[in-house]
């Protein structure tokens, strides 16, 4: 046991550290690091990554917990050993405590020794400082608590079972059951509910330390400093400690009540057999059925037959496992029947939406506020300049109190069919109820329906929407720290003074007062401001012709250029006609109605149907340039059919013009406005020209 633990820890810490440090030294030799400081920072980071919050330690910890826990209490599997150990005058509690502490000593000693070797080796290379040591300490506690949770889980599994195989099975179930359950619930909701929200509220494990560890080790690893790491890790320390204590208490109680005659049997407490069977078989069979549902193109009959068959076979397999006897296939038919009935009931709860998930629209007076994401996915970051998701930012910063238009759109979506909508768009909504509950839903809104325009204006035009969606509307901190500011209209790019960040923000915020759905829908941006912040954070802001204050600033910096290009600056226009009308549509199957937008028709391009033509004449340029729009500025507010997706336009600029073109590209992609493709272009790119 000691040897295994030592080898595993040495490999996990010292081995990984050696690999990381070698890689940094190699990169340094290749000149990746410009300064000695950069190199040293990389070394510090490597030591932290290897010895602190290492995100590939989970299997090592799970494996060690399993081996140490099972080995320590392995005497309970063997009648000969039980006869000896339980007959000698040694207090049962003392024996439990001795074995238990021995396991922790094995883990802790080998971890500490490995960390000590790793730290000493890093110190020799001057890659250790106070911050690194703090992170190593935080990581040690993080991994130790995770080990304790898993170690206690394994001990509980040992106490409830009588042989190694069943213990392994039980430990696996205990460790991953909640994750599996929530994954299944999410999968079924996506499969059967059209309004399943995939942004705000997902069913995440509440107790599973494995899930916490898997998700948050990675997150913590990339945090800026030890303080931030400690702040993030601390709640998990508390949660895991309590969880570990609870598991230990239950394990100890089971140990106290565990009969000696359980040695060698599947279950130490036969009374748990039927309950365990039902609890394992139901999700397993439903999981199998859902896999068949996905693979079988949503065939309900096939799915339910698979689930029932899975339930019957699963129950039989569990009984065989309990008794190690094939003849036990049909024992305890009552609990098998309960499992199968449970499977059928659960399937129909979801399939027939018995609880009205898709019909849910809260009453207005029950809703405190709403957050939502329309087609524009917010770019957001926190004070430390780390990206945060649109769901997180709107969830925190958007508090629409006039919920009536949102509820109206939600109710309307239930009456309408997505296929009948002119321009269906998804809307993710988070209802914050006065009860404290949060409910997420996703539905379609028809942007092409004039009735919806007013409702959408009542949402998009509000201060709450804008502040929740656009960081520039609420952030008093970042824009003064801009590291690069540019303005581009697709072809030109002008660098603006970084010290103007706040000034530009003020102008833009003022212009955004007029922003609403109608403005965004009916106007196309004439350019885009791009801002880079520390930590490689950047954001783009659409500029409209009506944004007087912003345009005035841009003009004062000679940054504004008309959208329409000067024909004299152009060397060549290449138009490619993909002839989409001839391409084979490929309808992908998606088993999740809520994700139906992903079923958009994809085309398999037949290269023989693609025609490209170069245009070099000024007269041709003059006819093409007024009817094209840069891809770069296309926004999702508009009808996708406003631009012609059959054509792709590539413009090559002359190299000697005075126009401030973005020289790094030498060329730009544009699209024709629908219905405005010049005749000579159509003819030149026709298949049978």
């Amino acid at each position, binding site marked *: 046991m000691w040897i295994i633990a030592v080898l595993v820890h040495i490999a996990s810490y010292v081995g990984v550290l050696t690999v990381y440090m070698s890689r940094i030294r190699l990169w340094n030799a290749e000149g990746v690091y410009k300064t000695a400081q950069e190199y040293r920072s990389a070394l510090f980071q490597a030591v932290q990554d290897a010895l602190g919050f290492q995100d590939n330690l989970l299997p090592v910890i799970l494996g060690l917990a399993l081996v140490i826990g099972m080995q320590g209490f392995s005497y309970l599997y*063997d009648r*000969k*050993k*039980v*006869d*000896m150990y*339980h*007959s*000698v*005058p*040694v*207090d*049962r509690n003392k024996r439990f405590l001795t074995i238990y502490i021995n396991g922790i000593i094995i883990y802790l000693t080998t971890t500490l020794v490995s960390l000590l070797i790793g730290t000493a080796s890093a110190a020799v290379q001057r890659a250790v400082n106070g911050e690194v040591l703090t992170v190593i300490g935080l990581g040690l506690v993080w991994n130790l608590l995770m080990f304790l949770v898993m170690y206690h889980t394994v001990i509980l599994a040992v106490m409830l079972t009588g042989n190694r195989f069943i213990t392994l099975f039980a430990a696996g179930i205990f460790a991953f059951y909640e994750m599996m359950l929530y994954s299944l619930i999410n999968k079924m909701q996506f499969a059967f509910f059209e309004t399943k929200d995939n942004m705000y509220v997902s069913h995440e494990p509440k107790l599973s330390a494995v899930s916490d560890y898997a998700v948050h080790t990675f997150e913590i690893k990339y945090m800026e400093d030890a303080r931030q790491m400690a702040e993030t890790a601390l709640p998990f320390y508390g949660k895991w400690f309590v969880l570990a204590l609870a598991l230990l208490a239950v394990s100890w109680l089971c140990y106290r009540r565990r*009969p*000696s*005659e359980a040695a060698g049997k599947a279950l130490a407490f*036969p009374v748990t057999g039927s309950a365990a069977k039902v609890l394992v078989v139901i999700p397993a069979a439903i999981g199998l059925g859902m896999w068949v549902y996905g693979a079988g193109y949503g065939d309900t009959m096939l799915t339910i037959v698979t689930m029932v068959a899975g339930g019957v076979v699963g129950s039989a397999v569990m009984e065989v496992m309990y008794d190690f006897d094939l003849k036990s296939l049909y024992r305890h038919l009552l609990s098998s029947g309960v499992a199968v009935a449970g499977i059928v009931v659960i399937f129909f709860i979801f399939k027939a939406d018995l609880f009205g998930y898709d019909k849910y629209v809260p009453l207005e007076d029950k809703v405190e506020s709403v957050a939502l994401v329309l087609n524009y996915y917010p770019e957001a970051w926190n004070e430390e300049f780390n990206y945060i998701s649109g769901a997180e930012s709107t969830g925190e910063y958007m508090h629409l109190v006039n919920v009536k238009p949102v509820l109206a759109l939600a109710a309307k979506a239930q009456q309408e069919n997505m296929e009948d909508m002119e321009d269906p768009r998804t809307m993710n909504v988070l209802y914050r109820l006065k009860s404290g509950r949060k409910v997420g839903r996703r539905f379609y809104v028809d942007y092409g329906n004039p009735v919806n325009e007013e409702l959408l204006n009542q949402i998009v035009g509000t201060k709450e929407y804008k502040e929740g969606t656009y960081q520039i509307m609420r952030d008093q901190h970042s824009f003064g720290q801009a590291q690069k500011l540019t303005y581009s209209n697709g072809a030109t790019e002008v660098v603006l003074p970084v010290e103007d960040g706040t000034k530009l923000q003020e102008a833009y915020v003022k212009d955004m007062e007029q922003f609403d759905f109608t403005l965004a829908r009916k106007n196309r941006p004439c350019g885009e401001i791009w801002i880079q912040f520390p930590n490689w954070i950047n954001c783009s802001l659409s500029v409209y012709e009506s944004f007087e204050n912003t345009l005035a600033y841009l003009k004062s910096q000679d940054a504004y250029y008309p959208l329409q290009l000067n024909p004299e600056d152009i060397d060549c226009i290449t138009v490619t006609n993909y002839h989409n009308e001839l391409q084979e549509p490929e309808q992908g199957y998606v088993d999740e109605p809520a994700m139906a937008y992903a079923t958009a028709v994809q085309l398999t391009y037949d290269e023989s149907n693609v025609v490209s033509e170069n245009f070099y004449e000024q007269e041709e340029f003059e006819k093409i340039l007024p009817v094209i729009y840069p891809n770069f500025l296309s926004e999702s507010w508009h009808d996708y059919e406003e631009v012609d997706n059959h054509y792709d336009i590539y413009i090559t600029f002359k190299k000697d013009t005075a126009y401030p073109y973005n020289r790094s590209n030498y060329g730009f992609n544009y699209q024709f406005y629908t219905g405005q493709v010049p005749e000579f272009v159509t003819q030149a790119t026709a298949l049978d020209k």
Partner: protein
Amino acid sequence: MIEIHSLTKTFDKIKAVDEVSVTIKNNTVFGLIGTNGAGKSTVLRMISGVLKPDSGTVTVDNMPVYDNVEAKKKLFFIADEPYFFANSNAKAMEKYYSGVYENFNRGEFYKYLDSFNLDKNRKIGTFSKGMKKQLALLLGICAYTDYILCDETFDGLDPVMRQGIKSIFAKEMEERGLTPVIASHNLRELEDICDHVGLLHKGGVLLSKDLEDMKCSIQKIQCVFTSVEEELKALSGLEVLRKEQRGSLRTFTVRSTREEVAARFATVDTIFYEVLPLSLEEIFISETGLAV
């Protein structure tokens, strides 16, 4: 004294021990005999505190034994297949047991090892089955507990070894009042060692008596009667446990004293009659009705 009262234990709905009540007096050799599956091992495992009874009580010197360290200090249990640590030798086992049993006599243990020609440094895994049992017995004896519980421990020991162990038992009983409790289905092995016998059958105790009393209360008679009437006359009023006939030679096992039998047969006309010594095996078969 070990007192067992209404002891019951069920495994998977099968009653292994059913309302067993036995008293094991100090300084006697108690033989627990019974057929396979009679519940001998289960009773011993309950006495030693390994198993918790479903109902009933087991006390050792008035102390309940289950989960009671003080009671267990008085017992040493040798299971039918004794366990030794993996890759260990006699020395390592002595080290463990001397840590567990405070009165463990190390000097005597090594002395016994020598006299039984068991190498203290040899891995136990290389020992024969008999050698392992010898080692377990020596560990048990040297633990210096008041009671040593042996489950089928004498099976597999050669006669010399068995005799050696018996001698040690006798010595320890005399010197410090050791009480061995020996469970076996091999009745011949117990016959010459046990003072008191508990007979288990199908989970329950059929009888528990001093061996001599037991032998006195059951008689085996071989005789030839002059007529059927004489036979009926001889047997009337006697509890016949077993009856055999070979030609005119009759063999009876009856529950009675030797004197009663002699008195009864003195009044009956027989060609020949003789009261034969009864083996424990015969008593067992008679009591359980398990004639082969």
